[in-house]
């Protein structure tokens, strides 16, 4: 009997997660391949289609241009060893802790600017810096309750951070639904493997939200605030509300009165204590932001300021996931935590330096150029795949507004075996882990959402642009890690920056 993996060769230049780990005799990956061989690709696909049909019937969809679509789930999971994941988890928690401190500082006394660790214009010229929301939070409140970072595995096999999403990151509902689907597609494997569960997420989120309720409240009312059914992530908003057992509300269901927020119900109004909002800053409160917006709750921002209600995530977090801020992440982690980042960034060019800018303009073809303040892959130009016209437009845009863009090396990120037609082929995939923070601590969903570019050679994983997803398994016990990802403290900056005078472990 031949295995569908027999002809699998990985992809040139990229780290293939199956090839590398199976060559290293990783039992989990080999066990997965063996199970697929026993099952047969046809049976695997049959099960996957059946599951997809029930998912569509249950409304597990996202919306693009007003059309509902399912998010295709590839039936081959991605496996990450528990040992590697433990280090990634530490790195994620460290990063969020540093960014939380950064935001507190930026919306407070701006010590990091005063100490000249970062330039002032990084803040004052950031489109997402919210002067209207520039006030300290209460001690029981967090700025980054939910973070969803984008990681990729670079050519050497190391998981590195591509971007930080600290505003309203989405995708966690697919993590939970994908796990349920996989239990029906490959029940055999769930018997043999000890896969770290992901279904805790809603209860962890709810616990964090409850712990951030205004202090005098004994039985806080939490709501999920959605822009409405036309939002691309509406399914997730409804999913999380249902899983947490809290009301799903739209802006028109809420109103402010005397610095408190109330939800209209059929009987009477009820006071709301915590709002988990999935609506952008610009639409939160027409008194401060878009005055012509019909979305939004006038009076909400001042209710937050006065401590009458807690909002998660806080307003103004976009200044910390600005891609130019990303370029200062080493300085930020060092300044607030006196540590080295455990997770690396991709080498990033800051275009305000004229020499760097010239280099980037001359080499756009070999770089990725990104607008600093966009999310969801909007406006990104991959030089190697762009037309001449697009390249020229990017050059002009950079010259006109150097603060508005950054450039990065094009990373040929890792591939994973994916079912394509009647074969298994390598496809590029990223990883979006989710981190829930509360005043008591942090929780990282084991694994996260692996997004796959379904077209051969494509590196665009966004669900709106032909991406699919994979279940991500963090498996304990059996596997031996092939690569050591213990952090190295060997990179030293020549001069310590900020308050820290630190010694480095060798």
């Amino acid at each position: 009997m031949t295995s569908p993996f027999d002809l699998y060769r990985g992809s040139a230049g990229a780290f293939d997660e199956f090839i590398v780990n199976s060559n290293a005799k990783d039992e989990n990956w080999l066990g997965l391949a063996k199970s697929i061989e026993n099952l047969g690709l046809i049976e695997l696909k049959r099960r996957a289609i059946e599951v997809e049909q029930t998912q569509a019937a249950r409304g597990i969809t996202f919306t693009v241009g007003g059309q509902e679509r399912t998010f295709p789930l590839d039936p081959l999971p991605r496996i990450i060893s528990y040992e590697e994941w433990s280090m990634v988890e530490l790195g994620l928690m460290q990063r969020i802790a540093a960014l939380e401190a950064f935001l507190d500082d930026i919306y407070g006394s701006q010590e990091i600017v005063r100490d000249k660790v970062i330039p002032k214009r990084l803040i004052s010229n950031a489109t997402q810096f919210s002067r209207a929301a520039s006030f300290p939070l209460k001690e029981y409140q967090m700025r980054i309750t939910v973070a969803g970072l984008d990681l990729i595995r670079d050519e050497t096999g190391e998981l590195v951070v591509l971007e930080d999403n600290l505003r309203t990151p989405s995708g966690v509902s697919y993590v939970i639904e994908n796990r349920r689907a996989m239990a029906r597609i490959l029940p055999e494997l769930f018997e043999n493997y000890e896969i770290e569960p992901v279904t805790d997420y809603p209860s962890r989120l709810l616990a964090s939200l409850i712990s951030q309720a205004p202090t005098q409240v004994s039985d806080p009312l939490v709501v999920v605030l959605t822009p409405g059914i036309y939002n691309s992530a509406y399914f997730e908003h409804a999913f999380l509300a249902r899983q947490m057992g809290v009301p799903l509300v739209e802006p028109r269901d809420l109103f402010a009165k005397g610095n408190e927020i109330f939800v209209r119900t059929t009987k009477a109004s009820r006071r709301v204590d915590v709002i988990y909002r999935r609506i952008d800053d610009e639409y939160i409160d027409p008194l401060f932001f878009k005055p012509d917006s019909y979305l939004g709750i006038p009076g909400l921002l001042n209710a937050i300021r006065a401590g009458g209600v807690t909002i998660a995530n806080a307003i103004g977090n976009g200044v910390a996931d600005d891609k130019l801020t990303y370029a200062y992440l080493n300085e930020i982690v060092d300044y607030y935590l006196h540590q080295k980042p455990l997770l690396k960034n991709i080498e990033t060019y800051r275009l305000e330096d004229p020499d760097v800018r010239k280099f980037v303009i001359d080499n756009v073809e070999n770089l990725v150029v990104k607008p600093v303040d966009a999310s969801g892959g909007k406006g990104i130009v991959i030089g190697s795949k762009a037309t001449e016209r697009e390249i020229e437009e990017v050059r002009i845009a950079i010259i006109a507004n150097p603060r508005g863009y950054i450039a990065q090396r094009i990373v040929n990120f890792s591939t994973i075996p994916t079912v394509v037609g009647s074969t298994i082929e390598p496809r590029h995939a990223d990883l979006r882990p989710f981190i829930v923070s509360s005043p008591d601590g942090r929780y990282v969903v084991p694994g996260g959402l692996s997004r796959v570019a379904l077209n051969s050679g494509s590196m665009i994983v966004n669900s709106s642009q032909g991406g699919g997803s994979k279940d991500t398994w963090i498996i304990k016990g059996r596997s031996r890690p092939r690569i050591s990802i213990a952090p190295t403290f060997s990179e030293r900056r020549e001069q310590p920056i900020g308050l820290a005078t630190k010694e480095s472990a060798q």
Partner: protein
Amino acid sequence: MKWRLEIVHTTKYTYQEDVYSSYNEVRMTPKNTSNQLLLSSSIAVSPRASLYNYFDYFGTAVTYFDLHRRHNNLDITSSSHVEIEDPRTRGVRLSPIEMSDPSFMDAFSEYLTTTTYTQVSNGVASQIQSSVSSVETAEDRLSKVVEFVRENLHYRSGITMVSSSASEALDIGFGVCQDFAHVTIALLRSIGLPARYVSGYLYPNKDPEVGESSTGESHAWVEVFVGEWIGIDPSNCVDRTNHLYVTVAKGRDYGDVTPFRGVYFGGQSSPPIVTVTMTRRA
């Protein structure tokens, strides 16, 4: 010169049909500055509402209130008592070398960056840039800007709107104090001089008796950094603001200092009736 002024600023809105709820922010309380001391202040609102006060990002005192009873008019009265003297300047000069120093530009980036209100066309920007290229000190460069504004913008009310930008006002050639401030700020920033928008009141008479009341006006002018911050009033061709100017708020442009801003549900509003009464108290 040092004196005390009492200012009563009333704003009356009348609605054609009932308003059933409204959310409002008022920036009408004078600031404490190096030449101005706020002795007392109060804001009164009718219909009655509970008031919430805070200081915003720019250090302006803000009063917020919401109303949930039907009403067809809204009165806001801001009363304050301030002691003002002429600003003391130390005569610190700024050279072109200092102005083009990256750390200077970074430290003042907030007041050097163009905003929606403070945009001028590339043509205007390069015109003013070339006219100051051979000018040495910041103050002389400022004079060039003032001259440009005097030649290209004329005072006339009712032509521009509260939402008009600097470039719109320059295109028309007419504007009010808000437009003069935005145009001046835009030009100053384009030649590398940090500039900010000031809102407040201007006392109309030069030498009033104690106890004498005058009708004052809400006004807007500009502060520019020429080695130190100095106040200029482009719409009145005043090259140094003095004890006649009561400062309420400072920001990047009008959007940061808007005296009254509200969101309301219900009938249309007529234009507000605003009166400012200023009385010399000492």
